[in-house]
């Protein structure tokens, strides 16, 4: 199968995994290994001084996984930019998943703040992967600014509803000149397979793996689904056949 390329780096795996909501750092680490992911997301928070744990990063093998800090918690472009700069200072990695979610109910991304932040971050040489609603025009606007990908949601974060935005995703995939990573709402391996079958370049899954009864096995299931979906896409799936209506020939005039 062909490789995924983002910002000039190639990856074998098209499954990105998030590190939130796991019951323990050990389970998280095992699930990441089982998923075969190469890119994992992390978030930034204030240290809780009264009850400080070791830095979560320690559990993640940085030789194996590319760390993708997200700006979750940011509700404005300014906050997202600040978090991005902090993340880069912490790790030296200039990749950032731009996430600006002022809405605390559905955690839907703010398109305007996202665009503003993307513009600043691209200028500061970040590799920006913006999380957005499945808005084809917004996707084009962000790619025009120079983001490395677009990451449209399938359904709201944590909702596990699958590709509610399928029609819009198909348009984004058709029109995009940067890789499309479907992110959020992928609750089952079949959702991931579906996203890959319609041509997504990659998918990001967090909640569905972390909150499964057996996260490690579930991570494996998602890995297989991503591979199956991609293989199907590359093999040229066939849509339903159309039969010619012989009774009204449109090209009969050419026989003369």
């Amino acid at each position, binding site marked *: 199968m062909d490789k995924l390329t983002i910002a000039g780096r190639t990856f074998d795996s098209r499954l990105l995994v998030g590190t939130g909501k796991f019951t323990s750092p050990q389970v998280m680490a095992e699930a990441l290994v089982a998923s075969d992911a190469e890119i994992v997301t*992390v*978030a930034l928070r204030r240290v809780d001084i009264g009850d400080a744990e070791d830095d979560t*990063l320690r559990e993640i093998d940085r030789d194996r996984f590319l760390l993708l800090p*997200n700006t979750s918690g940011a509700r404005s472009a300014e906050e997202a930019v600040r978090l991005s700069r*902090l993340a880069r200072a*912490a790790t030296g990695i200039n990749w950032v998943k731009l996430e600006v979610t002022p809405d605390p109910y559905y955690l839907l991304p703010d398109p305007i703040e996202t665009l503003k932040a993307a513009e600043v971050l691209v200028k500061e040489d970040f590799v920006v992967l913006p999380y957005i609603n499945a808005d084809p025009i917004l996707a084009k606007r962000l790619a025009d600014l120079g983001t490395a990908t677009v990451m449209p949601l399938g359904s709201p974060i944590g909702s596990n509803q699958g590709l509610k935005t399928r029609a819009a995703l198909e348009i984004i995939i058709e029109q995009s000149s940067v890789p499309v990573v479907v992110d959020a709402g992928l609750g089952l391996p079949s959702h991931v397979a579906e996203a890959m079958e319609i041509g997504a370049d990659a998918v990001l899954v967090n909640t569905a793996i972390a909150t499964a009864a057996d996260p490690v096995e579930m991570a494996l299931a998602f890995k297989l689904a991503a591979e199956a979906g991609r293989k199907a896409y590359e093999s040229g799936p066939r849509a339903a056949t159309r039969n010619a209506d012989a009774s009204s020939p449109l090209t009969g005039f050419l026989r003369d």
Partner: protein
Amino acid sequence: MRRHSFCGVPFCFLGRAIMKSLNVNGVEREFAPDEMPTTLSGLLKILDLEAAVAVAEIDGAIVRPEDFAQTELTEGQSIELVRFVGGG
């Protein structure tokens, strides 16, 4: 705003003693003048946070972990100590 005295003496007994304060993650912390940490590393040591902090901000300016030992502190600064956590 909570105030802590790191020299072990309750604040009220210090009367008009001059304490130095730093705002750390939104909380004012008081130090006796000769006990305020002089560097960021020093602060982390006092708070037992050496392993926990990925990056810091002082008065809005970012401080990278490799610079913690050399970064000097002045009283009145606002310090943010940040770490990575799991996220999607």
